[in-house]
């Protein structure tokens, strides 16, 4: 197998495994539309820089930052606008507290990521720590504060 074919095969294998996790993380953090576009953008960047990516210890975490940065940069430059969290349309979803999507949108990116991935997708705090590039204890803080803020916003007690 040629070097090029090996590179292609290794990236294909990586992308198959990384795409669902990357997509979910970016969509939980930034909403569906921005998250999906950022996922595609990050994967494209990862393919183009696969030589570099193979040398990183945490390629999914790296690509998450690439996607996040792309969102911030694109939305901040042309209109010099701040990052928008795209609210989620509740239509077609099971009944949930009506204020939950808005309450989630008011969490910080890290809090939303911790709350959404732990309670929504069953990720471990270590897995989220890898994506964010922080210690697991930091994720726990984001999770606790995020849940506390949700309870406060929604008027429920622990």
């Amino acid at each position, binding site marked *: *197998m*040629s070097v*090029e074919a090996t*590179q*292609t095969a290794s*990236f*294909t294998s990586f*992308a*198959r495994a990384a795409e669902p996790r990357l997509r*979910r993380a970016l*969509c939980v953090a930034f909403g*569906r*539309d921005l998250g*999906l*576009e*950022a*996922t*595609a*953008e990050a*994967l*494209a*960047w990862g*393919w*183009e*820089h696969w*030589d*570099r990516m193979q040398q*990183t210890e945490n390629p999914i975490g*790296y690509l998450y930052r690439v996607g996040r*940065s*792309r*969102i*911030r*940069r*694109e939305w*901040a*430059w*042309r*209109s*010099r*606008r*701040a990052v*928008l969290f*795209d*609210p*989620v*349309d509740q239509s077609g*979803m*099971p009944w*949930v507290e009506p204020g*939950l999507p808005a309450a989630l949108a008011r*969490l*910080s990116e890290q809090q939303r990521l911790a709350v959404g991935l732990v*309670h*929504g*997708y069953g990720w471990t705090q270590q897995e989220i720590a890898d994506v964010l590039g922080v210690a697991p204890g930091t994720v726990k803080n984001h999770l606790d504060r995020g849940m506390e803020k*949700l309870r406060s916003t929604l008027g*429920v*007690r*622990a």
Partner: protein
Amino acid sequence: MTTELEAQLRDYFEAFDETLTPIVVEELASHGERSRIAGRTRLLPGWAVAAAAFVAVLILTGGVLLLLRMNTGEPPVATSITTPPTTAAPPTTTITPPATTSTAPPETTTTSPSAAPEPAPITWQRIDWGVPSEGGNLVIGGPGYVVASAICRKADWSIDRFVCEDSRPAVWVSSDAVTWEEVGQDTFVGYAGGLSDVATGPDGLVAIGNVAREGLAFTSGAVWTSPDGAEWTQFSDVDRTFVGAGPTILESVTAGGPGYVIVGWDNVYGENSNAMVWTSEDGRTWTHVDDDDLLGDPDTGDIAEMYGVVSGDGGLVAWGSSVWVSSDGFDWERVSELAFSGVTVSPATGSFLAFTHSGEVWTSTDGRTWNATAAHPLGAAWVEAAWNGSNLLLAGQSDLADNPTLWLSRDEGATWSELDDPAFEPPEGRVFRIGNLEFQGNTLVVSGADCDSRIPEDDCQGVAWIGTWNE
């Protein structure tokens, strides 16, 4: 209750996950088409779409495609890394941006720019602001010049390069374009986000932005006014005045209609969007314009988004996903589905000149009827223009990774030549951005930024170029 909340989160995200379509070729192609039609900033530039599409094809077809590529010996996708990756080192790695493709001129084009760029008739001087800023929009007003932009106040180096994690609105003023001073810090410091445009009108300067109050995730529009460029006051209610059916963006402001007109758009959960217009006599009290011609169609996914507005003898012209006209700012008519990347008004004739992504130039005397010209200066996603008599200078940029290009027309936009000046050739690893440009007599001032060309290229420093017209 905690268990119930956790159960609701699980149910909510389970349903949410069903809406997250995996990355597929068809979806990427759809994004590209929408961007071309909308005529605005592409989150996915062409090279990314192509590369991501290729990745998706690989994922979908797996070994079949791999086998094909192996058999043909075709290289995967040309990578552009010129130096090895870094880990924690400062951002000295140089990555050449992927080669971009320019849209070929249509066959109907009969006159094209001269083959060899002509020497610039302008002598340039570069002014470094010395602050992390992304350029910004420039207007003549206040003490001389006013730039509305944003300043980065929190940087993140965790991925071995500069990423602006948090910015706030900022305004700079200058009497000579050489010495710049930031003003209004006390007014802007309580907000996150940035200013998108500024205009001079009957009651002074009006700056618009898309901001969030400190600590809140939601972004909404806001307006500040200033009689002199030095003192800035916010009159609009950030939470209520500029709110549409979804997240709302204020794109452009101009003096026109009853005094001032702001255009933008909202996005209804990503399904469709509506153009948004507000008017004001004095910049302090704003009225939202309710007009059916501004609405998109949720049934068809029709997009209605305004990205800019100009005022000419024929009234107001707004452009974006379509073209709209209004004689007074209150009644709007959607007159064309042309997607312009910039529109300017000839000070001599009052006619409108519009530019498209593919480099077409369209003209109109009333904003309603548009005629394609044979000229073909440049294709760019964003175009800014400045007039000096019948001389029209055009700056365009298609992607953040591309350096802007400048074009000059000496005959009201009929023919064009590219200005190839060393002042706009960035050093390796950097790329320039142009925010806006204005002529003041024979002095041309360009607001912009000097940025890291790598992806993500967030390390931007505010720059102004001062050009002296030599003819």
